[in-house]
């Protein structure tokens, strides 16, 4: 970890030699965007990302810059990345929706069990950071209740502390479940966006195998398997096939 950090620092110094902090460089990129120099803005945002920092706003702005320079699939990719960090941002949801309107392939998601939709709406409505803090607060409350239950002078007070502690523990368990789910969602590398303009999905991980279907840029795919340079993908409507890994980028 330490080594990685030092490498990143070196990288940071190398790439951002002319701007002191990524934040200042971010301002420069924003200026380029405001002057409608979208390609330049894209380049600058990407440089900030290469320096090893991340941020929802950064991905959002990069997505905007890609959108304005006509690369919708890259825009969607970056909006999706931003969504992991700031799932509650209204602007982000709007822009992602708009970008998704512009992709060629129309994919009707297959209906799922409503519980999954609930779960998704829960995990996608809070950020990992929020869940972490929430769990922390509940943890502190539980500890406090335990201490109170141990040290309270009277039986009544101990009882109140015990009941309160139990309730907090329940909430903490729920919070931890959400936290783990969210952590998985954030860390997962099984969703990707097709970044190639057009790619042919094969029936097996082999360029010579028969064509299953054709995908256009911007489509979200779920990666279910990987063989060499080929990834097995599943679409929201249930279609399955193999495509070259380089045609898609993991969110």
């Amino acid at each position, binding site marked *: 970890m330490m080594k990685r*950090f030092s490498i*990143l620092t070196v990288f940071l110094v190398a790439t951002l030699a002319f701007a002191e902090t*990524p*934040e200042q460089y*971010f*301002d420069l990129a*924003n200026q380029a*965007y*405001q002057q409608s120099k979208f390609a330049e803005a894209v380049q600058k945002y990407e440089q*900030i*990302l290469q320096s*090893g*920092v*991340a*941020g*929802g*706003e*950064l991905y*959002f*702005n990069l997505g*905007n*810059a890609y*959108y*304005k320079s006509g690369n919708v699939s890259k825009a969607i990719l970056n909006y999706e990345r931003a969504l992991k960090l700031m799932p509650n941002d209204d*602007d982000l949801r*709007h*822009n992602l929706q*708009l*970008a998704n309107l512009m992709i060629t392939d129309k994919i009707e998601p297959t209906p799922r069990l409503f519980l999954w939709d609930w779960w998704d709406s829960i995990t996608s409505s809070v950020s*990992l*950071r929020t869940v*972490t*803090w929430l769990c*922390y607060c509940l*943890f*502190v409350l539980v*500890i*406090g209740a*335990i*201490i109170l239950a*141990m*040290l309270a002078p009277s039986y009544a007070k101990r009882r109140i502390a015990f009941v309160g502690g139990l309730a907090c523990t329940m909430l903490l368990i729920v919070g931890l479940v959400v*936290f783990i789910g969210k*952590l998985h969602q*954030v860390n997962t590398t099984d969703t990707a966006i097709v970044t190639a303009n057009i790619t042919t999905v094969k029936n097996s991980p082999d360029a010579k195998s028969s064509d299953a279907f054709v995908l256009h840029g911007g489509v979200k795919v779920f990666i279910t398997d990987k063989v060499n340079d080929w990834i097995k993908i599943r679409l929201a409507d249930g279609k399955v096939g193999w495509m070259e890994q380089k045609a898609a980028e993991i969110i």
Partner: protein
Amino acid sequence: MVTSGFTQSLRGTSCATKQSPSLRKRLFRFFESQYRAESRKAVLRSARNDMFVITLVLLFTVSAFAQDPSFQASVDKNPVAVDDRFTLSFALNNAGMGGGKNLKLPNLDKFRIMMGPSTSSSMQIINGAVSSSVTYSYVLQPKEVGKFTISAASIEADGKTYTSKPFTIEVIKRSPQQKPQKAQQGLSVNAGVQEQLSNNIFLRASVDKSRLMQGEQVNLVYKLYTRVSVQNYNLTKAPTMTGFWSEDADMPKQIQLSSETINGKQFQVGVIKRTALFPTQSGTLEIGPMEITTLVTVRDRRTWDPFDSFFNDPFGRQIEYVVKSEPVRIKVDPLPAGAPSSFKGAVGKFTMNAKVDRQNTKTNEPMSLKVTINGTGNIKVLESPAVELPTDFEQYTPKVSDNINRREAKVSGSKTFEYILIPRYPGKKTIKPVEFSYFDLEKSQYITLKSSEIELNVEQGAAGAAPFVSSNLREDVQLLSQDIRFIKVARPSFTRQGEYLHTSGMFIAMMLLPLAGLAGAFVYACQRQAVMSDIVGYRNRQAIKVAKRGLKNAEVLLNQVASGNDGSSEKKIRFYSEVAKSMWKYLGDKLNIQQADISIDGAVNALTTRSVNEETSTALKSLLESCEMARFAPTSLSLDTMKTTYDDASKIIVDLERTLKA
């Protein structure tokens, strides 16, 4: 599929008062073919639903039975006579009902296209074998005698191009079967008569200017010059006017004849058609020839001898003769650049007037805004001027009416656009000036007319006056355009990629903090618990202190008795009870038993089991007994006895303390 050719021929028939049988026959043939095509289509339409099912059921078999597409060209007669019409049809077989596209005709220079293309389609299913055919027909008329090759035509269907085979058509002077028809009409027309007639009857098309601006009016006049008696005429081919908007002038029912001298010959001249043309595109435009069939009375040349004429038919012979005008070319200049935004192609001279039917109105009550454009020019092609309304007005597409005067040399008139408006909210509203632009030919510049602003006073209408206004008429905020939202410019705080709050050192430290608190609380609680649970040891340790305190009280009482010399039995009893209490308390604490639970013997036994020597326990027993006795007979007790008791008690406690501690 009524084609332009068809309408032209209709126009031709409508002005004919009497038709020649051959023409009638030709037209009938045409109608019949059209009708057949129409009825075939109707049958097809009604059969389409069934066909869809059949198509579904037989999808695979059909594809197995379907025949290869082919494209064939054919004519309905060959040879054909000059001036006789024939039908050239191209049949696209088995290429689906959609037909083909991009039909490329062969070179037909030697023929005149009288009408076409008209399209008909048919489909047959015989024993599962489907054959469909789409036919494009043209009615042609040869221009000259000879053998002509109709070269290959091509068409695109299903992404492929099909070509027809070229074939030869022979054009002869007069078809043999037409002769009897002519004979019924009159005597055969020999070449001499034809030539004779061509000098004596002709049709002239003239325009009043040959170079003009786009949208400018040009008058086209067709005049028939004749030196022979024309019984009747009949428009057989209307001129083609591609690139023009034309307005036929109203013609008087009876043709006014005048005389004109050309090359020393006197001609009767009649204007048979007058058209105002407005070019809609620039460039060199051609007005095609117009053709009329005249019925003229001729007399044989030899009968012109006045002596013979008496014996001949005084009315002459009637023959049919086709007169054709020359095509007219017109050069049209484009309008100059710099047209205002409200310019929509109006050329001429116009005035505009915009007014509302009332200025005070109520909400939900329809009102009208009338924009009237008056003037001369291409009035018919005027488009409705854009009216900018306050946003809370409901606007409907304008009702357009025009009134065009075609009698004058210049087409003039007015066009009225009536906009129905419904104000939805009360208040003072302003309709922005209506703009209308036209190109003024005299000044040769664009002129924009602007009406004045229209002020409206809208009052709140009665709620019941417009029951149709329900909540669904409420308008959403209209999105003018959909675009992505702007970037975030506020400085964010970046995190390292792959670094999360829960793995950061600070967070882990913060997690440890309550845990440390918990641990501290636990340790404290444990200690307190330990202290609480060692109550026996506590009592043991405290026993000597308590006993000494009790003996101290007893000593005070003893000293009082000794010094005060009052010798009251009350003090003595208190002394003994104090000593006894101290002793019992000490024993209770030391032996961890409740004072009430022990008797003198029990205490002695307990002490013996704790290996207290006989001497001490005997002394304790006698002391306790004497204390009990003293409480019942206090007066018998002397000061010395009391002192002895006190000393014994002190000694016993010290002894016990030593023994029990060990």
